């Protein structure tokens, strides 16, 4: 993988980010509806409103406001949250690890589940097993993550599965306050297995809800890629070598099917991250998605801006990572 390629991608991300910032700015100011109306609580006086306008620079012209806004962003200043009266950057960074861990667990689930489905479908090619895998993938894909989340909750309630928590991130009785937000990793490193187990258990349902649609997509794309790889000469060669069908599918074909699958499904990972907004809300999971909905409900303009930008940065970062993993997986790119 060449560094110039990476650098180029990084540079290309800047105008996209700029565009995102501009659109958020315009959306929140030009669209009908006074932004200050989102800021004021009930019972605010005219003077309060004027004061707020001045405080947030809303008495300046739109163009000037945009310049100030960009200057602040460039300096890492996302403003102050109105509802929480705290620095937006601090708030977001405090919650970001929660969402990152949730997404990573969800991604592992999606890759494991989707991979298993794809391999099973490829192994049983042309037999009822393949049709079952296809049907399952189609069904899973038709139902969005937030409905899966609600279905899981229903399931837990109806069947009284009290062991599976449906809200929060860690049990109240577990006395564990991490120094970082990465509770899963930190509890594991500090050998607090009770805390690790509790966080993991709280993460299972939201992670599965987020993972299912991605798993279905991975299953479909990977199965097609494996089928394509299975027609190649080196598979014939592997049969002549005397390898079992399981080994041929899992080692010889799967490895070569990974590259196209990563490029085709990597972008879907952004949908998983976007899904945290609702899924975290539904499971009262304290990440940035949950925070975003609260910010909207509280009409916390600076926080909304900060969160939307954070998501955009995450999306762009994922796309970059996908490109990099593509280069890493493909020996031709690594050496070429």
């Amino acid at each position, binding site marked *: 993988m060449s560094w110039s390629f990476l650098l180029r991608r990084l540079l290309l991300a800047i105008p*996209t980010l700029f565009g995102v910032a501009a*659109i958020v700015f315009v959306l929140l100011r030009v669209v009908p509806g006074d932004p200050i109306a989102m800021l004021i609580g009930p019972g605010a006086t005219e003077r309060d409103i004027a004061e707020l306008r001045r405080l947030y620079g809303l008495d300046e012209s739109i163009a000037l406001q945009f310049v100030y806004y960009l200057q602040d962003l460039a300096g890492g200043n996302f403003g102050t949250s109105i509802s929480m009266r705290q620095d937006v950057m601090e708030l977001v960074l405090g919650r970001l690890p929660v969402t990152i861990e949730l997404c990573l667990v969800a991604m592992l689930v999606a890759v494991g589940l989707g991979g298993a489905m794809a391999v099973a479908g490829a192994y049983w090619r042309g037999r009822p097993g393949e049709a079952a895998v296809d049907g399952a993938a189609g069904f899973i894909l*038709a139902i969005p993550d937030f409905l899966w989340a609600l279905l899981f*909750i229903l399931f837990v309630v109806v069947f009284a599965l009290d062991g599976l928590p449906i809200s929060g991130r860690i049990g109240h009785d577990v006395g564990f306050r991490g120094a970082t937000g990465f509770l899963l990793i930190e509890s594991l490193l500090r050998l607090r297995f009770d805390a690790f187990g509790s966080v993991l258990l709280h993460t299972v349902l939201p992670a599965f809800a987020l993972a299912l649609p991605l798993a279905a997509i991975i299953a479909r794309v990977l199965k097609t890629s494996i089928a394509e790889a299975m027609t190649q000469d080196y598979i014939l060669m592997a049969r002549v070598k005397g390898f079992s069908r399981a080994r041929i599918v899992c080692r010889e074909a799967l490895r070569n099917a990974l590259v196209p699958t990563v490029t085709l499904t990597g972008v879907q990972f*952004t949908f998983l991250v976007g899904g945290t*907004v*609702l899924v975290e809300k539904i499971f009262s999971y304290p990440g940035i998605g949950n925070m975003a909905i609260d910010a*909207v409900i509280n009409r916390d303009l600076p926080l909304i801006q900060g969160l*939307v930008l954070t998501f*955009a940065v995450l999306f762009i970062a994922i796309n970059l990572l996908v490109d990099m993993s593509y280069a890493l997986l493909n020996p031709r790119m690594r050496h070429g």
Partner: protein
Amino acid sequence: MAEAAAVPGGSLPHGQGSALRRMLANRRVVLGGAVLLFFALAAVFAPLIAPHDPVEQDLLLQYAPPVWADRAEPGYLFGTDNLGRDILSRLIYGAQIALFVAVTAAAAAGLLGTALGLLAGYLGGWVDTVISRLVEIWMAFPAVLLSIVLVAVMGTGLHSVIIAIAAIDWTRFCRVVRAETMAQKQQDYVASAVTVGLGRMHILWREILPNVLPLLIVLFTLEMGIAVIVEAILSYVNLSLASDFPTWGTMIADGRKYVNQAPWLMILPILCVIALVLALNALGDGLKDVLDPVMRK
């Protein structure tokens, strides 16, 4: 095919009759269409078939369980909610809102996306660059969050929901239509239209659009499914309509609050959303199968 040969020089490779026949022969089209029709009929005749007023509260009748449970209240097939409102009636009126939003939002997204996609694909050059860049930036947003923010800014109400869906999902139409238009542009019939001296807009409108149409029908159907979901999401976070208005999303949100006392509050609206979305997906996929050979010509 035989019909195609019977139409000398016809631009449509298949007669309308044969397209309809092939649709009726497709299992997914029939199944999806039937479920869609079921919901559409419920929506249209809601005032006639709903046994109760969907917003009428009866605090003496809270949490009446559905008929299959013990202690069911006669006359309330699916039970009542936390305010004693009839769930069946609310579901029926909820179908009205769901389908209305689905059709109008998908149409709005389709119009915007198709217009931009046609322009980008046909004109190319800087127009294409600008529009493609815009699509790319749009894709960098979390769609759900953006729709929530949009509705929050514009204020709750159906029109906000529809505008929000259109403002976010136009990219789906734009990307596909752009690619298809670029492909169609290479075809002979466009070249011959150019040599005959037809204007650009004329060619776009009369020559390219009809050929992109089958694709648009498929996209529209699939977008309806997405719109149903987004509307449910927005009602769920209490941004679609006033909360006593019966939308499926509101019902799900209420059900989530009282899930421990009355799990059936949530089951039925979720099943309705899933059934309608599955039906629209099946219809869209089926139509894709049926219309695909036409598109490839």
